[in-house]
């Protein structure tokens, strides 16, 4: 029977997870010292489950640095099989790399989205550090370059393209001509409306995830994800913007 172990298709004799684990330990060419965890088709388990043809199993030795080839397979071991292949092919652009966009980029990188396109004109400054994914070492760097550096340390198996421009009505269609999905994460409402209008009008194939009312101090319970139609999703409460005296946090 063929199963995948740590990303490699292998012919195995075992019919259950525990015997497969014995086979793995016995076949190991190195001394295994750390505790072993078992992930079976995307789910961590201690049970002796029955194996089927095509199953995906990962044995992770805690505290051990895997080889470069093995690392990618182990990083995506918790994905449901076939999900990783699908997200790896996806191309997603993130417009604006502030409080929303920098988090979106890092989370998509962790999820294993294979091609990210990061767009922002700005540089990292101290007031960004209270909520954006940057570090002190990034102060003064372009957000695009700082975030690309961070992503390479989290998931080096994806491609990151950067454009350090301010997005305008004039360049928006040139900047976002390839992606299937664009995440709108700008700060100013005029810029949000501009990119959403321009891309929905010109790109019949595109999907946009936009944000309105994710900042500002109001009840977090109002925040929702709304599917406007099959091409447009909006996150936020759609109502409360960040404003003077009504910023990101507030003391009652």
């Amino acid at each position: 029977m063929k199963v995948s172990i740590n990303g490699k298709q292998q012919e195995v004799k075992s019919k259950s997870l525990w015997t497969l684990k014995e086979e793995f330990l016995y076949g190991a060419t190195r001394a295994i010292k750390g505790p072993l965890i078992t992930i079976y088709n995307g789910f961590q388990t201690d049970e002796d489950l029955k194996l089927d043809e095509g199953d995906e199993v990962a044995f992770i030795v805690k505290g051990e640095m895997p080889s470069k080839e093995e690392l990618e397979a182990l990083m995506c071991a918790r994905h449901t099989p076939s999900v990783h292949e699908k997200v790896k092919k996806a191309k997603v652009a993130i417009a604006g790399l502030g409080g929303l966009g920098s988090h979106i980029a890092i989370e998509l990188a962790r999820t294993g989205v294979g091609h990210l396109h990061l767009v922002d004109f700005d540089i990292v400054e101290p007031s960004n550090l209270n909520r954006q994914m940057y570090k002190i070492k990034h102060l003064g760097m372009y957000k695009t370059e700082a975030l690309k550096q961070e992503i390479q340390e989290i998931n080096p198996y994806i491609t990151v393209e950067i454009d350090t421009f301010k997005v305008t009505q004039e360049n928006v269609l040139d900047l976002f001509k390839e992606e299937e999905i664009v995440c709108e994460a700008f700060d100013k409402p005029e810029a949000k409306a501009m990119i959403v209008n321009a891309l929905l009008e010109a790109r019949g194939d595109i999907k946009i995830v936009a944000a309105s009312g994710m900042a500002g101090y109001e009840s977090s319970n109002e925040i929702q994800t709304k599917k406007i139609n099959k091409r447009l999703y909006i996150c936020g409460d759609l109502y409360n913007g960040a404003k003077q005296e009504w910023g990101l946090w507030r003391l009652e």
Partner: protein
Amino acid sequence: MITVNGEKQEYKKVTVLEFLKTAGYRLETVAVEINEEIVSKRTYETTYLCDEDKIEIIHFVGGG
């Protein structure tokens, strides 16, 4: 009747521009869809709402 952001309203023959202004929206911060098609800003002035239309007005507020 028309449906605006999921809520039924009485139908009146007005343009998208007139509708948005009456409802108090700032034109620079909205996107409008009628029956799942985006309405180009250039045509707000010449596009009339039709009875039974399903209208989504996406209103953007700041913060991101």
